[in-house]
């Protein structure tokens, strides 16, 4: 078998997600009254990038065969914090950004510590920490408000050279600066190994704990980047429980659409990003198709159902029923 075949097999999930996204996005823009214009793309990308960050965060944890139900809340918490700190002179703003990212990192690290060293099951541990993070967010912003350095905000949510959405550039940068190094580092591989078979990894002397810890911590960081962007996008901070939960659940959907295995050890953040963008486009489709408003939620639900069922078609290729049980 040729090398590229192996590469292809490895990337199948990501490519599928990419495919789904492209198809949907073409349907969207080709039906959009304004068509495929810089504005439309910018709007779509700003919205998509937010979820993309959270989905990347979720990916890191899911790779270790864990799940982080607190990403949405970290996202809110950092948003509220940013609405206090990321303001003022360049220096102050810079300091604020660092502080916000630091906070996210810390939240992630706490999750990691509880799950790995406290040996708790991730689902419920992060449900709990999520509640705590939301509580803190609420302390920071009892009601919506705050402000942000608008020049920075506009720069990062605007366009480069009048065409290229800045948010996409930032996303790319984050991928290059965080994801690529992590996935190629020893810790990253440890995270994958732990997710695929913790016992085997341990027996092979892989630093599983450090690997998993790094994954959780970085997840916090990525969620914080998302929170920061939310602030840039909305100029304000709000501790909205519902939207925190929504982002957590969306991130799971995005991760799965992105071909990341919830059983761990398999998948990439790149896939998750396309999963996120695809998921967002589902929402946009409402806009271009003329649905009775009350039918829109159903439409979205059905599309999501279909999208997640796509993976099931692989099933028909399974000739050995034992493969059902992974």
């Amino acid at each position: 078998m040729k090398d590229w075949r192996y590469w292809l097999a490895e990337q199948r999930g990501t490519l599928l997600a990419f495919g789904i996204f492209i198809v949907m996005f073409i349907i969207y823009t080709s039906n959009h009254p304004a068509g495929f214009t810089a504005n439309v793309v910018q709007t779509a990308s700003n919205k998509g990038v937010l979820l993309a960050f959270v989905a990347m965060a979720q990916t890191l944890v899911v790779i270790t065969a864990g799940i982080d139900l607190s990403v949405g809340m970290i996202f809110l918490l950092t948003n509220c914090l940013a609405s206090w700190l990321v303001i003022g002179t360049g220096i102050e703003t810079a300091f604020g950004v660092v502080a916000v990212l630091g906070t996210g990192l810390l939240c992630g690290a706490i999750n990691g510590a509880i799950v790995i060293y406290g040996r708790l099951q991730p689902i419920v541990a992060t449900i709990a920490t999520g509640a705590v993070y939301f509580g803190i967010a609420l302390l920071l912003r009892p009601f919506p408000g705050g402000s942000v350095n608008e020049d920075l905000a506009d720069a990062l949510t605007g366009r480069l050279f009048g065409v290229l959405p800045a948010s996409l550039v930032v996303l790319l940068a984050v991928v290059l600066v965080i994801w690529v190094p992590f996935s190629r580092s020893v810790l990253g591989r440890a995270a994958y190994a732990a997710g695929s078979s913790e016992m085997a990894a341990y027996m092979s002397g892989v630093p599983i704990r450090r690997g998993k810890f790094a994954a959780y911590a970085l997840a916090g960081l990525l969620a914080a980047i998302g929170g920061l962007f939310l602030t840039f996008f909305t100029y304000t901070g709000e501790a909205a429980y519902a939207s925190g939960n929504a982002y957590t659940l969306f991130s799971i959907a995005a991760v799965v659409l992105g071909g990341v295995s919830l059983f761990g050890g398999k998948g990439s953040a790149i896939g998750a990003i396309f999963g996120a963008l695809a998921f967002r486009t589902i929402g946009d489709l409402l806009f271009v198709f003329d649905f009775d408003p009350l039918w829109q939620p159903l439409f979205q639900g059905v599309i999501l159902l279909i999208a997640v069922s796509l993976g099931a078609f692989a099933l028909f290729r399974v000739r050995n029923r034992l493969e059902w049980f992974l």
Partner: protein
Amino acid sequence: AEPEVVKGPAAEPDCFAPWSADTQFFKFPKKEGPYRIALANGYIANTWRIQMVQTAKAYAAQPDVAAKLKEFKVVSTGEDVPAQISAINNFIDSGYDAIVVNAQNPTAFGPVIKRAKEAGVVLVAFDNILDTKDAINVNVDQKGLGELWGNWLIKHVPNGGKILEVRGVAGTSVDTDRHNGIHEVLDASGKKWEVTEVVGKWDDGVAQKASADAIATNGPFDGVTGQGGDTGIVQAMIDAKHPFVPFGGETENGFRKFCAKFAADGLKCSSAGTGPAQVAVAMKTAIAALEGQVVPQAVKLPLAIVEDPNFKEGQDYFPDQSDNFFVGNSFPTCGINFTAQEIMGQSKENQ
């Protein structure tokens, strides 16, 4: 094309009442109809919002309104603020003349408001309004509502006492405003109040559970005020055999049914708020603005208040309608008056 700031009064002074003395008045450059108007809704899956969307459709369908509209499009984007912002951006890009929005977050729309302004799109917010001077707000006096309830309690619990306050969704401005309203008047009254606060999230189930617990532990109370889920609160009182006491609450049909039924037993209610029909006022305002009429930047909606003892069946409450149905859908000053059937009956034929 920005609106020019002009002197009042507004075109229909009684309907487009300015929020306060220093409210500005806008006059947008007149556009030729018929218009393309969009409603950017957020969360959809609760009765209030569904009723609101239905009302909007009903209003847009009224002949005289329909004549002025080329297109009326509704999009609901869920809890997610950025999604709603994007929706508005999209509406702007696709050249809608006016956008009516029930904002998920009053402070988050700065950038969009800028864009709308540049694009000369009329932006009208209602229910959860936008804190800005650049968009038109059709505004319920949330704080005033709190004050109204506070005063009601002061009036009917003459010498102070234990009050159960059931709050709404924490972190929202509506909840905070109403809460502050209540407490300011209570404190001002100079009487002695012992207020037990629980969170009801404007949801009957949650409110009922919270109230039941409060009654079992801190009860009995001399008065109750609830921002929402009031049907559940009364239900909790009934289940706990809590004596009926004065109650300042919202405008749910079920709540008013109770008020009417148990008034004699001491459930003296002030039921006030502004039903989902305010969307119609928002749309009316948008159209007026497009037609180049003078409109205030902040419209003050009249509260639909009904107080004991005058709850009238078939007008203030509808026995055969759902408990979740929000009453108070008439704004006579704006010539807007929807009956329950007109709203929920939308597609009776489906039945």
